[in-house]
């Protein structure tokens, strides 16, 4: 028995590791930070979001041996340019210019080719490449550029130039223009062009360009070479293992991106009760009703009653869930208000069905208690439970009814199939032969044995219970897990999406193990397999 339980647990460890890996790879298909921030973020935002979510670490390991140094390639201004694979800002190409005090326009170019329609097409593939400009050590500005488009602000020396911006040199220190490799696609470094606008003394000099070649004197090329020690370190210090560790230690300290004051743990914690307040009644009601219906149908199988029930179940299954929700909301909440001027259910919105701990504490403090202890708060909390719970029907009953109607078709069919299979078993025949009454056969013999598949189905639906019903929650504005997940998806709030999916998968696997164990307890044959 224990060996069996242990085996089930061990078996589920690689499965869960696979889930995290899959989710991680899926959510990294697009760059989360750029997807969230859009095309024109500031460098600070970019870096904060990235480190906050741990994206500055390698995903699984520092495999990338090539592409860590700047390579010379042909094409672009002056016939050659430099290219480097994706990096994290440790490598750069730096142009150092001695310029008199004044105002200058900075431009940059990167190589292009001529496309089929005669238009210029950029050779670059990174949509976000950072240029940082310093005077001495003073940071002047950081500019994002999109290297997937050809540079085309101005035209000079036969190539297009992209305007980086106007800068002012006030202290007379050397100007440093740094192209950093902080990107998830290869970065191209070709040339910059300086157009003097005003200088403090005399006529502004002619515009000039500086081509990036590794051996030029005013250019510093810094590589980010692959080292074995770093590789070894990255094998455990990477995004994957930190995510796994975070879940195993129940550490959800990442901050949500769209609601910056909330950690993902808060988001998940605050959404469980609203989800449960709808899905738990749905589960209980549907299981009760559809087991009864299944039992009745299976006992009358082949007769008109069975046919009618099954036909209704199929009919119910053939209508879209969304239609139930929309029509249900109209006839449950909207129509009574219009036709009879009575308000039975809320159309949209939610009030906590259980009092919030912090609110109870607050109200105690407001009423003059200096420091409400745990026990005192607990008593007050229990005292306010009925008040909160009385709001449940107004906000949640209609969604529950809709959920029951939707789930009924599927469940009734399933339970009927289970019961019919039990009907054909030998022990039922024996019971009947003994002269047991119909109801005794039904409830004493059959239902008891059919409990195993029923329990399995209920257990399997537990994660969905916690997840809540996405559509109903969105439609009725119930801030449960489904609502939060959808919110996070539309806001591209990757930490929340990843945390919610990972937690749901963990719950799913835990219930799986629990089901297996329960099975083993109920049916000793299972452990022998």
């Amino acid at each position, binding site marked *: 028995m224990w060996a069996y339980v242990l085996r089930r647990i061990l078996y589920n460890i*690689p*499965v*869960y590791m*696979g*889930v995290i890996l*899959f*989710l991680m790879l*899926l*959510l990294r*298909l*697009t760059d989360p930070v750029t*997807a969230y921030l859009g095309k024109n973020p500031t460098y600070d935002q970019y870096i904060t979001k990235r480190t906050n979510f741990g994206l500055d670490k390698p995903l699984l390991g520092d495999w990338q041996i090539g592409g860590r140094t700047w390579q010379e390639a042909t094409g672009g201004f002056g016939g050659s340019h430099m290219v480097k694979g994706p990096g994290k800002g440790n490598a750069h190409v730096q142009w150092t210019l001695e310029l008199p005090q004044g105002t200058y326009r900075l431009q940059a170019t990167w190589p292009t080719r001529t496309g089929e329609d005669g238009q210029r097409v950029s050779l670059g593939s990174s*949509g976000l490449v950072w240029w940082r400009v310093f005077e001495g050590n003073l940071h002047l500005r950081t500019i994002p550029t999109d290297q997937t488009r050809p540079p085309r602000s101005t035209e000079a020396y036969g190539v297009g130039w992209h305007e980086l911006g106007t800068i002012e040199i006030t202290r007379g220190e050397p100007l440093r223009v740094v192209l950093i490799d902080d990107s998830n696609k290869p970065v191209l470094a070709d040339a910059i062009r300086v157009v003097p606008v005003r200088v403090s003394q005399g006529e502004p000099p002619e515009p000039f360009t500086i081509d990036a070649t590794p051996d030029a004197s005013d250019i510093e090329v810094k590589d980010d070479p692959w080292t074995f020690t770093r590789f070894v370190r990255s094998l455990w210090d990477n995004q994957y293992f930190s995510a796994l560790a975070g879940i195993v230690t129940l550490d959800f300290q990442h901050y949500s991106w769209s609601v910056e004051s909330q950690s993902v743990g808060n988001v998940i914690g605050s959404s469980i009760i609203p989800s449960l307040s709808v899905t738990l009644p749905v589960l209980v009601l549907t299981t009760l009703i559809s087991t009864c219906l299944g039992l009745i149908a*299976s006992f009358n*199988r*082949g007769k008109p009653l069975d046919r009618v029930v099954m036909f209704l179940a*199929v*009919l119910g*299954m*053939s*209508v*879209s*869930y*969304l*239609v139930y929700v*929309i*029509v249900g909301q*109209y006839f449950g909440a*909207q129509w009574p208000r219009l036709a009879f001027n009575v308000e039975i259910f809320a159309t949209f919105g939610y009030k906590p069905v259980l009092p919030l701990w912090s609110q109870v504490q607050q109200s105690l403090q407001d009423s003059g208690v200096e420091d409400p202890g745990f026990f005192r708060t607990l008593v007050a909390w229990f005292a306010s439970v009925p008040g909160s719970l009385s709001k449940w029907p107004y906000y949640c009953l209609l969604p529950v009814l809709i959920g029951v109607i939707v789930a009924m078709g599927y469940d009734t069919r399933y339970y*009927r*199939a289970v019961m*019919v*299979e039990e009907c054909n078993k030998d022990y039922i025949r024996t019971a009947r032969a003994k002269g047991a009454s119909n109801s005794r056969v039904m409830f004493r013999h059959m239902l008891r044995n059919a409990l195993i598949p029923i329990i399995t189905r209920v257990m399997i639906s537990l*994660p*969905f219970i916690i*997840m809540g019903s*996405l*559509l109903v929650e*969105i439609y009725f504005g119930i801030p449960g897990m*489904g609502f939060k*997940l*959808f919110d996070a*998806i*539309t806001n*591209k709030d990757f930490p929340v*999406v990843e945390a*919610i*999916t990972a937690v*749901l*998968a963990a719950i*799913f*696997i835990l219930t*799986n193990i629990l089901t297996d164990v329960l099975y083993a307890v109920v049916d000793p044959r299972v452990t022998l397999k």
Partner: protein
Amino acid sequence: MSGSLSNRNVVADVSPSSEGRLSSIRRSRAYRSFIRDKAAVVACGVIVIYVSIALLIVGAQLAAAVGQRVGVDLSDTFIVRELSLKASLDRVGPDSLPGFLETPTTDKRLQNAEFHLSRIRRAFERDDPLTAFENEQLAERTLADKPLDELRRLLEVALEQLATVDEDYLDLEILAEELVDARLDLVEATAHEDRQELLRAIADLEKQRNAAFQTVEEQLVQIEASIEALIPTPKGFRGLVYKARLLLGTDSQGRSILWRAIYSIRVATQVGLVSAIIAVVVGAFLGASAGFFGGWVDHAIVWLYSTLSSVPYIVLLTVVAFVFGSLQVTVPFTDGVQVHQTLIPMYVAFGVTFWIAPCRQIRGEAMKIRSLDYVQSATSLGAGRFYIMRRHVIPNVLFLVFINFSLIFIGAIKSEVILSFLGIGVVGQPSWGVMISESKSEVLNQFFWQIGTATVFMFGLVLAFNVFSDALQDAFDPKHAR
């Protein structure tokens, strides 16, 4: 089950010609059991109708595309024009027009008249009204074939009529409000004389209101006649098409609900078919390999599907559709169409989500078959692995492939509705999901035509597939309870 199925194979071995195979299928228990189920035969017919409409739409579009390449312009042919995407996206009348049987309210009729007249007036403000109206035209309704001056005169008359009816309608509304107030007063009044007076006033108001209503109605009839004179409802075949277009009303952007629902058949069939093919092929291939080869292959595949099925299905679907929908990738072999503008994210999401069930079932079945006596004896006779796979395993798991195919088809169509509602489903073309989610605000205004039409169209196909897959399961799997 193995008995009947292996029996079928024996027959097939004896007479491998196509005719023999057909008759052997006819003689099989499964076929006879399926054909006995009348509901299943009807369902088959319904499915055939839906699929042939979808094929017709695809065919018309293909013909138009081929014609364009060859240099023959087919886009004005009736079938091609009406089955094109454009026909389902074009405005054909005023917004939210109710369908047949339901007469529009006075309020709505007034709005419709205003809608038509303002379009005609806009055209007449231009230098060349005829071509201007050509661009504004609503389906079959074009300007009447009369001299321009006469049309202009008709328009002026109609606009005058509209102005008076607007005023009268305002009066009507005021009267109605007064009536409501008076009735409220009556409820509060207690003195007998007051009540008598109020009752008299109410009767008077009612009379006035009825009279005002009568005039508004009469004027509306006149205006409608003027509009009819300006842009006559077409006669003959064109008139029939026009009537058909407005048969089920228009949506909130004045597009024909019926046309959109019909075009959606194509989208639904496409989504269902492609997703089901991807899921079933992947699932069958992996499941059969896992069950048949066992060992490491089995472990790897079981691990893969356990992993994917550990994420709740709706979450997996949403996240995959979202991620693929936000990829900035162009589709190969097209001129710059982005992936998120196509149905590809949905195919991927359905493929990733739905392959698990067939894989699991086929793996179980293949494992069972591998240990059957006749397979063992074939192995001992020296038959190769691939021979056994082709000869014994694949034919015997084919029924699972069919059943899963039809179940996934249903799943894909129903999930499309949810994804479209969440905004990560069908984009830029009509689908039942898009129609249902667009009717969200219409239902609040008690307009049920769009949601009703989409639901009925979808209901037909999904119900047919539900009945069909039930019958398939009954026919092939005696354990599936009857």
